[in-house]
């Protein structure tokens, strides 16, 4: 096609130029470089798209909850943690001593019982740690989606299969559509 001075880009070429100018045929590109009218049309389109994205950013709410950050487990260097641990240990020692003191066994073999008690308190602490780490019963962990991601995805795939196995779509609040 011959792109003369008045042979402006057609609708398809405007769209192509907005997607990627390198997709235009050489003649059209040449015309574009020389024609302020065609350039202005494309620039207007680009301006509208920029407005769309800027308004979307401006009109989206601010994130209130910051995203996940990896935090190293607190160690002994942290004084609050040390204080907590020390208090816990002190309570356990007092409990252990009390138990030992009142236990009939303590009258005869106090050293052994003390050892057993400490072992038991260690066990108790270990049990408490396990409970804290796994606060929910396995079935609840599974339901809450905190179990392995692979299992969760498989489960969801089985129960609610993807319709076209393509990408998710925009949610239409007006129609209540989820995927279409």
């Amino acid at each position: 096609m011959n792109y003369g001075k008045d042979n402006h880009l057609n609708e398809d070429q405007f769209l192509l130029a907005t997607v990627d100018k390198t997709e235009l045929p050489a003649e059209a590109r040449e015309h574009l470089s020389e024609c302020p009218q065609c350039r202005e049309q494309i620039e207007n389109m680009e301006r509208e798209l920029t407005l769309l994205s800027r308004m979307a950013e401006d009109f989206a709410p601010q994130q209130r909850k910051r995203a996940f950050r990896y935090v190293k487990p607190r160690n002994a260097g942290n004084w609050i943690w040390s204080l907590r641990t020390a208090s816990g240990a002190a309570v356990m020692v007092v409990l252990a001593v009390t138990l030992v003191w009142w236990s009939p066994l303590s009258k005869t073999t106090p050293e052994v019982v003390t050892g057993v008690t400490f072992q038991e308190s260690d066990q108790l602490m270990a049990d408490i740690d396990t409970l804290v780490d796994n606060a929910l019963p396995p079935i609840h962990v599974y339901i809450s989606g905190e179990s392995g991601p692979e299992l969760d995805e498989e489960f969801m795939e089985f129960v609610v299969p993807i319709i076209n196995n393509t990408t998710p779509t925009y949610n239409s609040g007006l129609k209540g559509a989820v995927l279409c």
Partner: protein
Amino acid sequence: MPQKNHEDNPPPTRSATLSRQTVILTEEAVAGSETAFNSLVDLFQEDIFRMAYYRTLSRMDAEDITQNVFIKAFKNISRLQSPERFKSWLFSIALNQVRDFYRKKRLLTMLGLSGKGDDHEQDYEEENAPDPLDNLMKQDFWKHVELFLDKLSRMEREIFTLRFMNHLGIREISNILKKNESTVKTHLYRALGKFRKESTMRQFLTEEKTL
């Protein structure tokens, strides 16, 4: 001179000036640096939050999705083989999370356990109560966006949103959706054709600009 603009074809807004920094941080994060990972979270959480918000129009849902995206990214970052593709990789995770979100929502609806009626209205009220006029304008904007996006096919919608609302380049979109670049361009071309016909939406955009 606009000539330069014709040669390269950058995303419409916000050029990716942080890409080098991202690659360095990603390399460190892949090697096990939690600090580097946290810096990546700081760099990308707003992008991911917006990406999720544009697809859910609910701040709380978008926050939950954002949270899940970074948890998943943290668990899997050691397996990322191309640090230069971190952003695409992160957006792929985000798309999967959005997809999961809708599947779970559908499941709850199927089971009759879905709670809220019109989440969007509630969110608007919650977010913007102090200024009713501003609130109304935002509602109007999102309704225009929804009406327009509803006219696009699934793929057109996804590609248009990634390109013109999330500022991703064609190559990045191609990586995220695992489609070749010419397919991405074809869908974008069709979506833009529909955008051009969307006179109400375009008028709204240009009118708001003048306010």
